[in-house]
């Protein structure tokens, strides 16, 4: 099968950011890392093709065993556009699903949180640990979401009382095992 080429000119890649990549990282060739500040990706994290990490507004940190899906954007410059010390800090075991956007500006996503398909986390929001943002839910800029919160149905909130954080982490670790075999990793491109 021949490789499909886009007829559009390649998107102008921004400045190459200084990166700190873990040796156990799985990062696809076609992921986009751009910006001027440093991008730190910790061990066993998986970055899917065409995921976009933008450190223009400040430093990006992604924890261990995270999965960043296709077309997800971490560090999107929000409405404010100001440059801060730590633009986005993503904890361990975080899943950022397809098309989700995490805006820059001292945004924190806590451990074990799932940012659903097409969800949006505003600049400066602090999402607690083990939260679930269901698809297309939005967290306003500067909002603080407590631990174990489920955001569903156009912004309704409830507390997850399943107590399956450990199980979820185990499941995610297994998923990452599979993904590492599926996604050809090329960290050298970003080093």
């Amino acid at each position: 099968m021949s490789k499909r080429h886009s007829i559009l000119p390649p998107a102008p890649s921004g400045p190459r950011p200084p990166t700190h990549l873990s040796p156990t990282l799985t990062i696809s060739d076609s992921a986009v890392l751009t910006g001027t500040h440093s991008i730190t990706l910790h061990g066993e994290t998986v970055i899917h093709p065409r995921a976009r990490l933008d450190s223009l507004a400040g430093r990006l940190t992604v924890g261990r065993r995270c999965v960043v899906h296709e077309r997800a954007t971490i560090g999107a410059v929000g409405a404010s556009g100001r440059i801060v010390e730590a633009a986005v800090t993503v904890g361990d075991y975080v899943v950022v699903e397809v098309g989700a956007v995490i805006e820059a500006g001292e945004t924190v996503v806590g451990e074990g949180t799932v940012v659903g398909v097409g969800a949006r986390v505003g600049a400066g929001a602090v999402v607690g640990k083990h939260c679930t943002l269901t698809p297309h839910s939005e967290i306003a800029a500067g909002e603080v979401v407590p631990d174990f919160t489920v955001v569903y149905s156009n912004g309704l909130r409830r507390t997850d009382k399943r107590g399956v954080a450990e199980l979820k982490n185990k499941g995610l670790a297994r998923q990452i095992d599979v993904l590492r075999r599926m996604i050809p990793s090329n960290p050298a491109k970003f080093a």
Partner: protein
Amino acid sequence: MAALTPYTYIQCPCSDSPTLGRPSDASSPTSPEPDEDDRTFDPRAPRSNYSLYPLEYLLYCEDCHQIRCPRCVAEEIVTYYCPNCLFEVPSSNLKSEGNRCTRSCFQCPICIGPLAVTSVETKPDPSLLAAPDNTATPHSGPYALTCSYCNWTSTEVGIKFDKPNGIHAQLAKLRNGGATRMTAKERKERRKDPAFRAAAAAAIGSREQEDLDLETQFANLKMFYQNQLAHPNSADTGLSGLGDLGFSSPTSLSRIMSLYTGGGLQDKKAKSRVGAMREALDPDEGFQLASLDESAAIAQLQAETLDDTASAAQLLDQPPNIGEEHLYGRGRFASELRPIPYLLRTKRSKRCPMCRHIISKPEAKVQTTRFRIRLIAGSYIPSIAIRPLAISSGSSASGPAVPGALLEPLKPAHYLLTFKNPIFEPVKVTLGAPSKTPGRFASKVTVLCPDFEIDANTDVWDEALRETGERDREKERRRRRGEDGNHNNNNNHNQLEVGKIWERGRNWVSIVVEVVPASLALVAGQGPLREDEDVLEIPMFVRVEWEGDAGGDEVGSAPGGDKEVREKRELAYWCVLGLGRIRQ
């Protein structure tokens, strides 16, 4: 202001009750009904809301030759099925088991998402595509219902199941919190048990009364009042002065009870007597003390947050639980919500109310979405499409160039109505529209060509093969358009002429309607502009005539049959053309 796309609504003739079911027979002498015929249909009348439908909503009875709307069809339920598992439920089960799925189909009480049965111990996250767990035995231990959307789980309300199947039966026996509860049937059986009766009698003595479930309470009350009606004199009358009016009067009671039980209690004896009856006094008579002590609920409210209370929508979705004790003080908290068994859905066939012929019948199998019979009106009556017409040559008249643009008041605008004939016979269409639209703001309407004929809906290939080239077709079209001579045709064939068809094709005809929108300036003394009063709506009477087979059944049969058996058919109805909004 929201843009308005032009629309056509058709009035179902069922709203004029005298014409219901009467096949519009051209041969029978039509009795003159001046009131009926002179009346212009007013699309703004409050009644019209209920009789106007888009063409797609309408069905057509081939025997009565009438349009049938959703209001004037008789529906019959073909199958009951669960929308979740798509299993058909026999109608005999409905009576015994209710109108909800009794398999393992449940909705989340929080977000109404579908619930899945998962093992509590090795619960995999449904949002992850994890490989099956091989560290622990996957199918073991208690099970719970979980919602993959809002992460609700039945363990939150303390419900766990021993088996992963037959959840409905297991749930019926479980109270929120995990304690078992009796089903209504078990309760009934327990009441018959003499040992239990003795214990209950002792309990009454100690003022510790048993809670009745709704079903038992109703049965007890019914029995008590039936006894009271049979022997009203045994009661010590206290409020006899009130006579018929009070709750305790036998006549009003028997009236109320006949509403619920089907009128078996209206015996003459009870009617003739006027007197008061005593009320129920103990649980055997259906008496139930309301628990007015709400301190527990108040304490819980203080301990918990607003998020822990159930919303009105969530409470409404809860199924009624006739095995439950009483309604007082229940269902305030999210912890009291229970999984909702799916409500069953139906497939229905539709019959003509007059001739009882089936006009729509879905496939009985739940999984198929096809219809066995479906006589939609769109394949019998001409469709009307509306398009604004911008005339470049005309200096005075011009329509809105963009569809959905506002109409300028007092400026003539032109609209193109395209009638498309779906049947295989040529039809003759006669239009009638009032020169002024009804309502407070009367716009002027002129249908330039109210009388025309549409060719049959013949095979597309016939047309294509008959006309060999584009030039021939264009010539043909011109010839058709200029019906009484072709002078003046070459200079400007986009000229508006009264009595001329604008354009015609294989099975369609376009005509022009000129409107002069009214000014919406309010005269002193008039009320403010009402909702949608700025929409220009034209009532139009459409009369369609064609020659069909006399057999009556096959309107859509091939032409060229015996000339003797062909008969003239006529269909007439009102429709409403919504053209656009007038600028205020």
